[in-house]
């Protein structure tokens, strides 16, 4: 780090990474043609938004959330209810839903952050379960277990954003904005404080960092990310039901962050993509292997993956891959081959 790097708007590596990323995402629809694949890309985008927020919470603030899907669901149902039952504009509904979710997250967070990790884990789990129960029981607005149909689309003026391609750009555009904000936050005093809290709470406290407040702020930020993603989800799928926001979804979100690397913002969309693509692959392969339907067997893979990653690659797949790549570049045989090549006239 030099003083110039600190005062620049962007570090060189981050800027290059961002441009490459934008180029990649922007041109993807050109060579992904099947509607199935494209719609999965849209979903990867939507879930990436959630995982970026969750990454801030888990990787930087070091707080476990087993109920992040609840915030995702609050955004989805918030948008759904406001547009279907009250006829509001989807854009306004998205904003209001995010505010409501943030407020709920704030009040949930106040008592919870004085707790240690396992209590927090269970607390968020309980919160998620309560939200799921409310979604199922408050039938007047949510439609209960059968779900809430007929959610309208986003519109730009008079044109509805309906096609997969249009939604793809909407979703990923939001992801890129979210990514930029998250990267900026991490590179600031706020991000440093979070990393400090993660490394040693008492030490952070002793330097004047108001630990409880920062954890709370991070929870609220992550809930906003999840809520916006939920709203995007609702207007994409146009029909939502409680089981898209239950505990197993929360677990999958944790898995996505873990795969990508708990403390890596760039890792979040990467881990999300890996898990969703893995799910797609499992859905194809597993019926070939067993008599039973594929549906639930993915969960074994999720479970094993979580365990293996946490034991052997606690910094996540991205870091492990980068390290393996570097090791490959540094390997003796490679160096020998390159030097032999260079010696040729």
């Amino acid at each position, binding site marked *: 780090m030099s003083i110039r790097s600190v005062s620049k708007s962007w570090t060189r590596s981050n800027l290059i990474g961002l441009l490459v990323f934008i180029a990649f995402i922007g041109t993807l629809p050109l060579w992904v043609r099947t509607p199935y694949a494209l719609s999965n890309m849209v979903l990867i985008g939507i879930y990436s938004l959630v995982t970026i927020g969750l990454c801030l919470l888990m990787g930087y603030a070091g707080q476990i959330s087993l109920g992040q899907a609840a915030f995702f669901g609050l955004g989805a149902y918030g948008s759904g209810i406001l547009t279907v039952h009250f006829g509001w504009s989807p854009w306004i509904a998205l904003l209001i839903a995010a505010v409501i979710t943030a407020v709920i997250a704030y009040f949930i967070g106040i008592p919870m952050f004085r707790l240690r990790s396992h209590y927090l884990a269970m607390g968020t789990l309980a919160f998620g379960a309560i939200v799921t129960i409310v979604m199922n029981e408050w039938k007047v607005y949510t439609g209960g277990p059968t779900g809430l149909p007929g959610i309208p689309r986003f519109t730009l003026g008079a044109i509805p954003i309906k096609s997969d391609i249009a939604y793809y750009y909407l979703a990923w555009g939001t992801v890129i904005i979210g990514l930029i904000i998250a990267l900026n936050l991490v590179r600031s005093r706020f991000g440093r404080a979070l990393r400090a809290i993660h*490394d040693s709470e008492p*030490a952070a406290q002793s*330097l004047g960092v108001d630990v409880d407040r920062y954890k709370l702020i991070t929870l609220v930020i992550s809930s906003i990310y999840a809520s916006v993603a939920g709203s995007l989800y609702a207007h994409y799928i146009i029909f939502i039901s409680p089981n898209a926001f239950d505990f197993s979804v929360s677990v999958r979100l944790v898995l996505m962050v873990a795969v990508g690397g708990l403390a890596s913002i760039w890792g979040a969309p990467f881990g999300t993509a890996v898990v969703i693509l893995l799910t797609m692959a499992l859905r194809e392969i597993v019926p070939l292997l067993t008599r039973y339907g594929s549906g639930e067997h993915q969960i074994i893979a999720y479970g094993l993956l979580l365990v293996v990653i946490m034991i052997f690659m606690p910094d996540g797949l991205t870091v492990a891959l980068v390290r393996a790549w570097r090791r490959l570049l540094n390997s003796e045989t490679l160096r020998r081959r390159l030097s032999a090549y260079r010696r040729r006239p």
Partner: protein
Amino acid sequence: MDEPLLIMEVDRISKEFGGVRALDSVSFSVYERQILALIGPNGAGKTTLLNIVAGTLPAGNGQVRFRGKRLNGRPTHDRVRMGIARTFQQAHIFDKMTVLENVMVGCHLRGQCGLLHAALRLPALRREEEDVYLDAMRFLNLVGLGTKADQQAGSLPFGQQRLLAMSRALASNPTVLLLDEPAAGLNRMEKNDLAELVRRIQQMGVTIVLVEHDMELVMRLADWVVVLNHGQRLAQGTPEQVRRDPAVVAAYLGTERD
């Protein structure tokens, strides 16, 4: 001749842990720019007292006053803002961050920019980051770690981690610095460097309260010594007075040596 200013008062502090009386009505005063050493045999309650002053632990009974203001109930980060900083026995550095970043966290309270500035990386934030960078480097150079700025903090040898912790605490601009056994685990040379550093800090205008076991260091550095035993104040005075106090001698000889 200037009257030394009373900067901190420990007033009849008591603390119980489920039946164990860790501290029993301990009182003493700390004067500005003083180096006060808190000594006593193992289990005397020194670290507990330090924790109470720092705000990590609530006092059972009694008060701590800083510049006349009561500290009771104030959380640690408030006390840091008021000017009380501390280090830990185990250093507790942020091992996954760089050495410089550790000190930059120490500058945390100087930052004015909020989340919005950070999220949008506005020019005000960038300028603030520059200032923080320069300040942090200054404090690093003060303890001699300037060359290691970009190293990962966790890779530093223990003695340097201690220095980093002190540099970090200094970065928060304290009026009073609480040092929890800063010499523990250091060799002779490192202890000399530490003593020099502490003197320099005192010359910068910082008041130092030092919990220590190393008698030689205490005798060398301290202006005033408070002796605790079994949670009570056994004696206080200049290093010479305390050394010759028979009660103190008995307390030390009567317990296991470190």
